[in-house]
């Protein structure tokens, strides 16, 4: 196992191994310090940040579904300045941090990106395009090619850091959105965010979430996420970070095989705070057992029927 080279490059970010944690599922990192040393995984993607601190939605904010969960947290976060002043310093020096950004207006996105550029430990930015675009009547930024193009252009100009764009899966054709990002100079894609979903309680006939609609995550969505990673990886040259329902190393390996250069562990962190570490170790063990000298050689190694 020690023979396997686990390093991967994600759009200019050199990672010691391909496992990151997904935004919104790992807090600001420090919460996991009791469980394991964060330098043992590739890096962390912090909770998405807005310009100002935000409170988020009233409860209930989460609910369980078959092999999945729904959430509508709202935009709750400490704000970009508190993140830089308080959260980043709390992490040990060797932790690679990708800062995630979401906002309701494009110029605010760009401003958050500017403030993060140069902050210590921040090795890249992830643009969360699954946020409702107020001006487009609530449709997500990532659901309209023109809006997405503007967003990527503006954030690309705002930072010299590697720029990851995290796409919404709630689209007709993920390849179209991937191409938009490639065209506007993104360095990598993160695929996917949550699937828009809903559940109701039959006893009260009320939606289970106060926000009515929520995002579906967890193993339930993994086959959909895998499909999008597969499609996008064949439509663009950008490296892809695969996300969606990764619970075990085997799940992560599937994303690598389908064309992802790295992965993010999300919901699994809740059930098992050591999930990301176990996934990182398990990927190396798989590569070793299958005779791959480098984890990077697994990327896109899918064997298609002739």
């Amino acid at each position, binding site marked *: 196992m020690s023979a396997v080279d686990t390093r991967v490059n994600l759009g200019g970010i050199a990672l010691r191994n391909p496992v990151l944690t997904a935004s919104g*599922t790992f*807090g600001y990192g420090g919460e996991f310090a009791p469980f394991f040393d964060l330098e043992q995984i590739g890096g962390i993607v912090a909770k998405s940040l807005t310009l100002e601190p935000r409170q988020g939605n009233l*409860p209930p904010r*989460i609910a*369980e579904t078959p092999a999945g969960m729904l959430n509508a*947290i709202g935009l709750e976060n400490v704000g970009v300045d508190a993140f830089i002043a308080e959260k980043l310093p709390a992490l040990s020096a060797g932790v690679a941090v990708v800062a995630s950004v979401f906002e309701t207006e494009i110029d605010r996105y760009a401003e958050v990106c500017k403030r993060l550029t140069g902050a210590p430990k921040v090795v890249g930015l992830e643009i969360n395009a699954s946020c409702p675009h107020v001006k487009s009547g609530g449709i997500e930024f990532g659901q309209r090619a023109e809006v997405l193009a503007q967003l990527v252009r503006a954030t690309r100009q705002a930072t010299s850091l590697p720029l990851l764009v995290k796409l919404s899966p709630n689209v007709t054709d993920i390849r179209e959105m991937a191409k938009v990002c490639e065209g506007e100079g993104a360095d990598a894609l993160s695929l996917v965010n949550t699937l828009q979903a809903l559940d109701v309680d039959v006893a009260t006939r009320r939606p289970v979430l106060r926000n009515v609609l929520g995002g579906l995550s967890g193993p339930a969505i993994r086959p959909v996420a895998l499909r999008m990673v597969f499609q996008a990886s064949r439509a663009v040259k950008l490296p892809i970070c695969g996300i969606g329902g990764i619970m075990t190393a085997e799940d992560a390996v599937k994303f690598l095989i389908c064309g992802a250069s790295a992965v993010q562990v999300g919901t699994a962190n809740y059930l098992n705070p050591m999930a990301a570490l176990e996934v990182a170790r398990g990927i190396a063990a798989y590569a070793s057992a299958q005779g791959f000298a480098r984890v990077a050689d697994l990327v896109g190694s899918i064997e298609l029927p002739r």
Partner: protein
Amino acid sequence: MNPTLPLRADARVAENRCEGGANHRLRLAIDGWPGARPGHFVMLSPGARGAAPRFDPLLPRPMAVYRTLPGAVPEIEVLYKATGRGTQLLAEARAGECVRVVGPLGVPFALPERGQRALLVGGGTGIASLYELASQARARGPVAVLLGARSAGDLMGADDFAALGVELRVATEDGSRGRRGLVTELLEAALAEPGPTAVVYACGPTPMMRRAGEIAAAHGARCEVSLENRMACGFGVCLGCAVPRADGTIALVCRDGPVFDAAAVGWANVP
């Protein structure tokens, strides 16, 4: 505040038995368990217990640490009602099997000041959060435990409280044990009694806790409540367990609670 760092462990089921109706008692042996303070809870993953990974139900369930039994391998007890999918699955766990545990978690109860009278108000599964508190409060002053349930069969842990030697008063909605009525009526009566300053601790259904807070406030007594809310993580990262404070700001039940001052809770929007 929580002085003990939480751990993630594959706990071994030492015992898991039905105590009548939906009531169950689970004893878990946990290597390295750091101990817990009254009001601490754990996250238990019932779905992770089998040999093959299964993800339905997906999320772990928050459960109060009923009590810790020290030993070479420390054990904790959990009292739970098997009602939904996760707790019914938990009820199927046999001795020797593994259950994933994360904990201890949360902000515990503040023990009463020396000489204060502690009034512990428990309803439903909330009773499970009060045992260690009753046990530790005994050394500070008089303790009365007021328990409520629909009927005698639903009552959890009453014998254990009795064995602690604390004063025990019971109310059931159908009158099958103790007084017929609500446990908050027992609280009213207890606060009306003469004696040292009282401090109230309540854990149970939201309306009960809210009412306990109002009654305590009316008598000038401090009241701590242990809130319940849906949780995905239990340690402050999913932001799923938010409840509003009275001042409109948001608190996380798992990190800022589950124990809150009743007066600080924005009750109108607690689910």
